[in-house]
């Protein structure tokens, strides 16, 4: 009896925390709408394979860069990893299809996938229209945050893409 009550309480406690978390993320999203594009990019780190990651509280949001979406052309299909699976830094973590080409997505860091952007299933072209905001791909709980040190900040990435053309 007591244990059921406790379990119920525990459940409620968890639910409570989840809802608080939701509110937090939502408010974060709202504030984001007001900042300028350069501020939006400020926290982002980039890989040489043109993925970006934005980390907050140990969880990184991952997407592909403006440069990458432009090179790919219109994305028509997005295959994302399953939530809960572990991926390694530079390991395959999905695939994008555009103009008859299947392009691998690589995870910028090691960790486990906590969430995928479900909206992309029906509207894959959000990756083209809003690569840094609505077109994010997945969220990952970092297992080795030190890996972030090897990534490029926006300035370095910009120079890197210039050297690629």
């Amino acid at each position, binding site marked *: 009896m007591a244990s059921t009550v406790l379990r119920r309480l525990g459940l409620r406690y968890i639910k409570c925390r989840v809802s608080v978390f939701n509110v937090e993320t939502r408010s974060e999203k709202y504030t984001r709408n007001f900042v300028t594009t350069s501020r939006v990019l400020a926290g982002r780190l980039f890989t040489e394979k043109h993925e970006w990651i934005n980390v907050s509280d140990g969880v990184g949001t991952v997407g592909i860069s403006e440069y990458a979406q432009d090179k790919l052309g219109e994305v028509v*299909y997005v295959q994302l990893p399953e939530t809960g699976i572990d991926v390694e830094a*530079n390991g395959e973590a999905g*695939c994008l299809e555009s103009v008859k*080409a*299947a392009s691998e997505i690589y995870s910028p860091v090691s960790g486990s996938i906590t969430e995928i952007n479900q909206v992309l299933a029906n509207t894959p072209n959000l990756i083209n229209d809003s690569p840094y905001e609505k077109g994010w791909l997945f969220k990952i709980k970092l297992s080795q945050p030190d890996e972030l040190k090897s990534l490029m900040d926006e300035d370095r990435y910009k120079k890197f893409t210039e050297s690629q053309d």
Partner: protein
Amino acid sequence: MCHLKQIINIRKLLALTKVQPKSVLYSTKCREKEVIISKSKNIFENLALEDWLYKNADLNNRNYLFMWRNTPAVVVGRHQNPWLECDVTSVLREKVDLARRNSGGGTVFHDEGNLNCCFLTTRKLYNRKSNLELVVDALTSNWDIDLSINKREDIVLNGLYKISGTAAKLGGERSYHHFTLLINVNKKKLHNLLQSPLIGVKTRATESVPSHIMNLQDVNEDINYENLTHVISDKFLENDLVKRKEFVNPTEDSYPGYNIILNELKTFKWIYAKTPNFKISRAFRIEIDSKIIHTEIEIEIQKGLIYNIEFSLKPNNMDLTNIVNRFKDVPYDTTELLPILDVLENENNDAIYKWFLRCIKQTLNV
């Protein structure tokens, strides 16, 4: 004196214009080149070797051109739905292979009248247009035919008929671009097999764009697999002194790790279960004992398995849940479904029951 100066200037100019193309040539020359032609005529073996080369070949130093042909096969793109792209039942009945490749793009039919070309290089040097141009150049310099490259990067004959379908796979550092070339493909078989009998499918899978096609032999009977591979290899190796060209048998001994790729390509998990989840919805009506009966059925396929069957029956005077429950998690595969349907058919003789079963059968097209 002035005259002399001018001449010197002109010489300088000439020298400059000469230097530039040389340096461009040099930069492409310094990459090694190799042509590999497979002796296998099995689609799975050739796709496995292609994937092996993509993963293991020395792409940093060498460009590869891999060519092959295979016995009849339907090959779907990486994110496609085979049930929607072809008549799976006919394909299997006619002993045609059904394969899924790693690259994007649409479904193609291969037989021995089709040449497959695959250009493997680094991601940086990936250039579909130049590969297609090379092939067009090779063909038009040997035969008097009208070939061009259209906006979708297909090679078209006489400005209208597609003779080639393109697709690509891009990794972080590696890439390949492959395409078919129709020499003398059985067009009737192609049209028959690339038609899905399924009705009422809702899917997010990438769908093929049907095109008018033509065979190269329709315009020039001299063109065949042997001379085509020959002229394309020659063009590819044109500026290469070593001229590496090999005819190979794909085996584990020559390509360590090849068997793992081959076995994976043949699994239900890769060919069928990779299909993006989809639903098939159908409505049926019938008159039994002068009463109109109406049903709507929606079957959901997830990872190649029947995940859920929803239905309505009007008038609702019979419990049919027993039928639908029997299909839960059964692979969407005729050989698995037919025995279940047979068993169910013998369980009840009621006319509505038997009709509903037929409706399920028709919805799944088994």
